[in-house]
């Protein structure tokens, strides 16, 4: 017998009494667990939580303002005005803001990665990114600075709301759903939190109002 059969037989014998449970029905019910209580203003909650987890947060009135906000941030932090963005963001007018941005997947040497976000999760101040041809996962991962553009109406309360929205808009999951909550970090040495491990050293979230 194969390992698969052996394992399933052993499990089957151990849980024999409950064979009648219809797991498909249980799965389809997608019952939610208890969700922590939250204030009504999701944008406020999102920003406060994102700041707590060491993301930076800026506001922009419209999408057109985004390149300017990014340029100002890079200047303040004395960072290179050069990097990559998701192909999905290729139409932004980067040049006009003095930025040299290529729309492609990131390589090891790129210092800045600009992405959008599928949703923001207010509960924990978390970004939700989906991988795809126009939204490569490397852009939020390899560069030392990650900047994410998040439209205000894309902020939902909880991860449960995010799953609901994902099923409604996409049906199935993309190859990778990445929830990002601030810069990469490690506390492996003496349990001391250090920002910047293998992923970005800083994360800026630009919340766009209009």
């Amino acid at each position, binding site marked *: 017998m194969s390992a698969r059969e052996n394992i399933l037989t052993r499990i089957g014998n151990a849980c024999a009494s409950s064979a009648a449970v219809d797991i498909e029905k249980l799965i389809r019910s997608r019952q939610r667990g208890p969700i922590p*209580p939250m204030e009504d203003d999701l944008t406020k909650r999102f920003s406060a939580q994102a700041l707590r987890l060491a993301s930076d947060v800026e506001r922009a009135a419209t999408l057109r303002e985004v390149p300017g906000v990014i340029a100002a941030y890079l200047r303040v932090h004395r960072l290179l005005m050069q990097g990559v963005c998701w192909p999905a963001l290729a139409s932004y007018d980067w040049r006009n803001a003095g930025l040299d941005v290529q729309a492609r997947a990131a390589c090891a040497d790129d210092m800045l990665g600009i992405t959008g976000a599928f949703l923001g999760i207010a509960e924990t101040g978390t970004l939700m990114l989906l991988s795809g041809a126009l939204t490569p996962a490397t852009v939020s991962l390899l560069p030392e600075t990650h900047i994410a553009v998040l439209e205000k109406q894309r902020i939902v309360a909880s991860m449960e709301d995010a799953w609901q929205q994902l099923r409604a808009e996409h049906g199935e999951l993309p190859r990778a759903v990445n929830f990002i909550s601030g810069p990469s970090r*490690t506390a492996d040495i003496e349990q001391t939190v250090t920002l910047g491990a*293998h992923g970005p050293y800083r994360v800026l979230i630009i919340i766009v109002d209009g």
Partner: protein
Amino acid sequence: MQVSSMHFKRQASANLGNEKLQHALEKLQTKFVDGRAAAIAELPNFEELRSAAVEIRDRTLHRLDAYLVRFEQAASARGAVVHWAESAADVNRLVVEIARQHGVRKAIKSKSMVTEECALNDYLTNNGVEVLETDLGEYILQLAQEPPSHIVAPVVHKSKEDIADLFEKKHGRVRTTQIAALCREAREVLRPGFLAADLGISGANFIVAETGSVLIVTNEGNGRLTTTLPRVHIAITGIEKVVPTLEDATTLLRLLPRSATGQSITNYVSILTGVKGPNESDGPEHFHIILLDNGRSRLLGSELQAMLRCIRCGACMNHCPVYQNIGGHAYGWVYPGPMGSVLTPNFVGLENALDLPNASTFCGECAVVCPVKIPLPDLMRHLRRRQFERRLRSWPERVALRSWSWLAQRPRLYAIGTRIIARVLRIFAGGKNNLRFIPGLSAWTKDRNMPAPAGRTFRDLYRSRHRQ
């Protein structure tokens, strides 16, 4: 990993005298214990969440076979290949086969305790696959050739000076003891490894039956790199890690990082489903998932079944007065602390881990903090009983236990007996408060003082108070 649980006593006493280790272990208290307390204080419905988590785990274990098959179907439908492994040896063989099949020479790994169960790294190296650990803690251990001493913080036993020495020796760079600089150094040294690897090996915190996804939580981002850059990804996980839906996984995620490190969420939570699409620039072309039993199915339907609820948060060890004093290596296998004391005997044999179920003060704190309410002290007590029944304890101990149980079932005799013993011990103490030596119990009194009985027995006191 080589089992050394049979040497628990020797290892524990050595560690108790190790000042550096004692100093390192103090950090657990301030960082993890206090961090967890603060994170939970912020969550008004923590107890409700715990109950929901127990319900999810029990509901899944109830039909574990059906959920695993459901997972297999969903994962295969998205192009992943699901393998089943009965033992650690099966896992090792499968990984090497997959590596050969795809012509892999270099592998990178993100932290996985299941692969520690298998001693996978040694096996891969011996079979011509170069393997590099990329979690900072695991990387340090790979350089030092040591096993992890904690399931969440694998190098908790090392100081930054130890790590500085190690890095200087292995990297040949200027020595630094600055933690941020050490982290940057590791990042710089490991980056080329990520870029050159053809295979990424990861564990899984959960697998989702609904979608066939593998869910991984990390803080460093190495888990993301491991599962994004190489063209082949192998995820290896225990069969108990399956959860029915994304909603269920979400509930458990509210508890896992808070219980582990006091974080409201880990930096990254990645849900990986299938292989990369035709126009995608990143993601693996081949995705293999290995489901490992290795003794887990044996726990199902047994008195120890609740142990399969474990989500590997480490809270039980962080809060354990025994772990806090002796560290993880003393336990002699992959899983230390209270959860290890229950799991290790199941994996390596009760006779090879005789001291583990007894390595407890039974203060009960582990059960109090466990996010999935595993009654760890009860499970350890159960293992003690099994040891007794299988005659694995020494004969004097068995005789003593048997006599005590005989006596305890005869209340009058018990009252007289304890009165006599109390009197004898008092005489023996000769007016002092502590007994330094008791004939026949020298092993116990060697390191401890036994308080001398103060006067009357509990039963006498109880009776006289009741009368008043």
